[in-house]
């Protein structure tokens, strides 16, 4: 048994495998399958200042070894989250990353301020949702906007702040540096790429939103590249995600520079995916005589 524990911003994680925001709801649906305390942590569904109903359906399309979604931040709003979901989550004996978003920097800051008074472990600020008109990717694709929203949220909370970056940019390292300069404690990446599929029979986009967020094993090489670039550009810990579906994928993401990984699409396909990834990572470490998962982080030797 390798030592899988990792530490990010002073928070101890049992293992580096975290269900990604948006695929795991608030965990309740997965409790029928296993004890959530086995997870490294849980990133909750993106929560905004007030309730949102999200986009019209269809909101999902399949792609070759991936998927598109256009949920559009459907959530009950921060007050309902804190009241109805958070107590249960905090009782789960795992690290809770509250994923937040908003149409304006003020909304994000307000949500963060409310969470600041709770026992949530970390705030993950999503500046990269491709499925909403305001905020979302608009924050994540400009250094100025990314810096501004990070600054506002930073002022609103002393909680460890992880900013979640968009891959739909010319230079993700510049955004990363802008966010680091405004006091982010960690970075998570990648959110979904922007993609599209068309139904040949109806000649309509499969998603009612026309375009949507592209995730899953297909995007893994882009995610590894960006994690590597960002980890080398900033001195913050990085949580890597995008296509992680096996223990070996997790090891690769850690080597690229991540301190932990999040798992999204793989869970949509199979509720047991995070447990399998934890086991496989452990087995891989053992069979390669590596004592700890933590020592993988950033261990790739570039040419």
């Amino acid at each position, binding site marked *: 048994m390798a030592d899988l524990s990792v530490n990010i911003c002073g928070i101890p994680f049992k293992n580096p495998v975290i269900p990604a925001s948006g*695929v795991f709801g608030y965990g309740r649906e997965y409790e029928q399958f296993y004890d959530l305390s086995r997870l490294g942590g849980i990133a909750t569904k993106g929560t905004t200042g007030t309730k949102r109903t*999200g986009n019209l359906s269809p909101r999902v399309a399949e792609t070759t070894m991936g998927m598109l979604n256009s949920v559009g931040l459907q959530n009950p709003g921060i007050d309902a989250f804190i009241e109805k979901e958070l107590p249960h989550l905090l009782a789960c004996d795992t690290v809770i990353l509250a994923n937040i978003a908003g149409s304006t920097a003020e909304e994000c800051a307000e949500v963060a301020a409310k969470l600041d008074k709770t026992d949530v472990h970390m705030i993950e600020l999503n500046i990269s949702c491709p499925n909403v008109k305001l905020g979302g990717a608009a924050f994540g694709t400009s250094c100025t906007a990314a810096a501004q929203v990070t600054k506002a949220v930073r002022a609103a909370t002393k909680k460890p702040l992880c900013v979640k970056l968009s891959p739909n940019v010319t230079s993700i390292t510049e955004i990363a540096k802008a966010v680091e300069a405004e006091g982010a404690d960690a970075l998570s990446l990648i959110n979904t790429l922007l993609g599209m599929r068309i139904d040949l029979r109806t000649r309509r986009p499969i998603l009612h939103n026309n375009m949507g967020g592209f995730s899953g094993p297909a995007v893994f090489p882009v995610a590894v590249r960006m994690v590597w670039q960002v980890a080398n550009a900033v001195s913050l810990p990085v949580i890597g995600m995008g296509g992680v579906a096996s223990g070996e994928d997790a090891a690769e993401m850690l080597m690229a520079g991540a301190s932990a990984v999040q798992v999204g699409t793989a869970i949509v396909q199979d509720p047991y995916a995070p447990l399998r990834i934890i086991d496989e990572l452990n087995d891989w470490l053992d069979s390669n005589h590596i004592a700890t998962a933590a020592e993988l982080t950033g261990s790739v030797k570039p040419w």
Partner: protein
Amino acid sequence: MKQDKYTEKLTYRIRSMEQLTAAAWSMVIECPDVAAKAVPGQFVNLLPDGGFTLRRPISICGIDKNAGTLRIVFEVRGKGTKALSELRAGDTVNMLAPLGHGFTLPGQDARVILVGGGIGTPPMLPLAQYSGAKAVVISGFRNRDAVILQDDFAAAGAKTILCTDDGSAGRFGLVTLPLEEEIKAEKPALICACGPLPMLKATAALAETYEIPCQVSLEERMGCGIGACLVCACRTKDANGDEQYTHVCKNGPVFNAQEVIW
């Protein structure tokens, strides 16, 4: 599909596989734990082999709690259902089930009308078996070659009315005609329906006109199938009539017709 202790939990053996029409297949799956819990109107979510990301939702068409089996009937539409149709007795299938919220049935002695359109017909069978002679099953198909399950409905003791769009089998025309006739003949306690949206709409409209409770099974593209990923939203009204988003996989697939925003 790589087998490990986790996939094993979702892996079930296929007892039998039968081709019903050019496109439709009937599969019986050995799954005692699932069959024990399943109720009519629920669905299973199958992951075909061969590099698919998403599972395929298929309604439950038969529940045999003694044999510990479920039956599903599906049509080949795209690559995923094609892959499923290539499975044979003895093969295994990766399945998450039973999922969703099923039909809420009146007593077995209450008259029910069950309306099925095309590949929406299968989930009507367990209801017909439950209500037996008190059930009227009205099913509609494109043409003769697409007709399925009529013998099963008859065997359940239900009054079985067949319609086709082109009159090549049974009655000519839409299911709403015999539906209205049957309502007029004797008002049922409940109408249940599954099929294409226009059919569901028309059925719900008739139910409203005649003030009959109506439950419809909806379709939406799905991800997780268990209520977590929120991709399968449909528009419904809450008790106050306010629009809310609910999720076909968890709150449905069966909804009271009055809740649905068509």
